[in-house]
């Protein structure tokens, strides 16, 4: 007797839960050959809005965690990614049409990159912060702090998992919370990453994954007054100048689109892009 295969429903990841789109819409995710792979939720502007609310409420907890703790939590995600390797490889092979070896290499790279960023969590402040010299009996200290809620348009090209990891990991390091619009054509690794995050120590709402059309959702995130920064790394095919203009209305930090093989390459600058420098004065102790 033939067994009936049970296909998986891919849903959104918002506030630590896996809801369907409030719009009820789904779209077909196809393999590189054009075969049906899965139905993914087609997120709407209201899903993006809910994701921002979740990200905002998770912010104080995540930003308030010690840098050492954030580093541990992020490192733990890398461990879990390793444990789910087979699933990620499988999804990459079917949706990107690459060999298992290439897919394995992409997962390797994604995990390594995650670990690399996790290591920065308790170090970037020492590099980017400073004790400024001043002409008086004061300490003058500059320290970077997280910007807040970061909306990210994930890279839309090949290497779906690596692109996603390269975009969200640096924003998380400093204590920002993230709303990411996944790769439209290859969203499966994004949802699976959501499942990894849900079973890790990352509090719900710190990372929110919305699948669907970036062209539809991005303008709402760019103009949303409760989003503090916008990473347009994967928005090269969108009208990204318009997105930058509407982001400017509410004074968001914006990163421009990147393309090519070294798009969103690991760099300290990606972490610092979503930090604000706070400078404080303090009297020197009288000894």
């Amino acid at each position, binding site marked *: 007797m033939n067994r009936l295969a049970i296909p998986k429903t891919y849903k959104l990841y918002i506030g630590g839960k896996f809801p369907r789109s409030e719009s009820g819409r789904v779209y077909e995710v196809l393999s590189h050959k054009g075969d049906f792979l899965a139905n993914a939720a087609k997120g709407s502007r209201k899903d993006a*809005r809910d994701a*921002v609310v979740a990200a*905002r409420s998770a912010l104080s907890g995540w930003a308030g965690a010690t840098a050492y703790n954030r580093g541990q939590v992020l490192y733990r995600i890398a461990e879990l990614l390793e444990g789910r390797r087979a699933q990620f490889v499988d999804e990459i092979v079917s949706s990107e049409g690459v060999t298992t070896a290439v897919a394995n290499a992409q997962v390797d790279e994604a995990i390594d990159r995650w670990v690399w960023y996790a290591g920065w969590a308790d170090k970037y402040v020492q590099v980017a912060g400073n004790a400024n010299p001043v002409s008086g009996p004061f300490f003058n200290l500059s320290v970077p702090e997280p910007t807040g809620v970061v909306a990210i348009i994930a890279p839309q090209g090949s290497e779906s998992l690596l692109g996603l990891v390269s975009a969200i990991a640096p924003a998380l390091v400093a204590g920002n919370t993230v709303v990411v619009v996944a790769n439209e054509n290859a969203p499966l690794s994004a949802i699976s990453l959501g499942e990894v995050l849900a079973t890790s120590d990352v509090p719900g709402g710190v990372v929110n994954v919305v699948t669907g059309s970036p062209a539809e959702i991005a303008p709402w995130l760019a*103009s949303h*007054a*409760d*989003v503090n920064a916008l990473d347009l790394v994967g928005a090269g095919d969108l009208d990204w100048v318009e997105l930058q203009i*509407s982001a400017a209305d509410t004074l968001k930090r914006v990163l421009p689109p990147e393309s090519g093989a070294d798009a969103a390459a690991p760099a300290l600058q990606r972490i610092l892009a979503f930090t604000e420098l706070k400078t404080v004065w303090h009297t020197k102790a009288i000894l």
Partner: protein
Amino acid sequence: MTSSPMATYQPERRALALIGGEATDANLRRYLHGIPGIDAVGLEARAADLGTRSIKTSSKRWAIDTIIGLIDLTTLEGADTPGKVRSLVAKALVPDPGDPGCPRVAAVCVYGDMVGAAVTALGSAHAAGGTQGAGVQRVHVAAVATAFPSGRASLAIKLADVRDAVAAGADEIDMVIDRGAFLAGRFGQVYDEIVAVKEACRRTDGTLAHLKVILETGELNTYDNVRRASWLAILAGGDFIKTSTGKVAPAATLPVTLSMLEVVRDWHRLTGVRIGVKPAGGIRTSKDAIKYLVTVAETVGEEWLTPHLFRFGASSLLNDVLLQRQKMTTGHYSGPDYVTID
């Protein structure tokens, strides 16, 4: 909101005619227990059904402005200061400084000792004695009294509490019923207390401050009790029935409010008198508030959606409504940075 219609309204005589005798425990019990019971499952299903209506675009815009105009902006904390009351009043008068077209709230609701501060802060915008002319919505001052929120004090203290607030200029008094007496079946005592408080609402010029009777439905346990308490409060002369103090969970819920609206509807059919309803506590989002508007319109009719017949007792609701309003005005989502922190 003047008390003039109330001057000719004689609840005592009406109540006595209805219950067929003096307002004794026995008579009231016979009357209140003779009221048909509530089908709890049906009530909750009806409330849930009313909550599924889709209110969009121009209807939503109307609903949002209506909600703002029905809010009793409330601060009832032990840490209230005159400064806090002043900033509450400022928000009541200009809820959204970025949009002068935003309507004012109906009233501010404070503890009795803060009434003076609220009246001073309102100045010419105060409902009673205010000088702002027609076309400008004036704001009322509501005071909670009668040993709010527990109501556990002697009658003399409760009445003094009410008189103080009225003398300080309160337009509306939110009293709590004695839930202990109600649950023990001493309906006569609850009735007499409401009548006495109503009398204590009398100002020196003979007019009455509006009386809202808080049932504290979260402590009444059953819908049947809520219905009986609603009847009791109306029989005794309450101008408004209010769900909760906001200090007890659960506070206002849609089924409870629906059951109270049904009593108000029945009372209107019986006597032609319109009684107000005020759900308070636990209503935090515009979405929730819109469900209440739908429930009111469907149960007693749209004419109840005016400040002298329906209010929301809320503090955080206003901010959420303002965010929705900004979204509709600007076309993009707003955030908590664009409303005041209360």
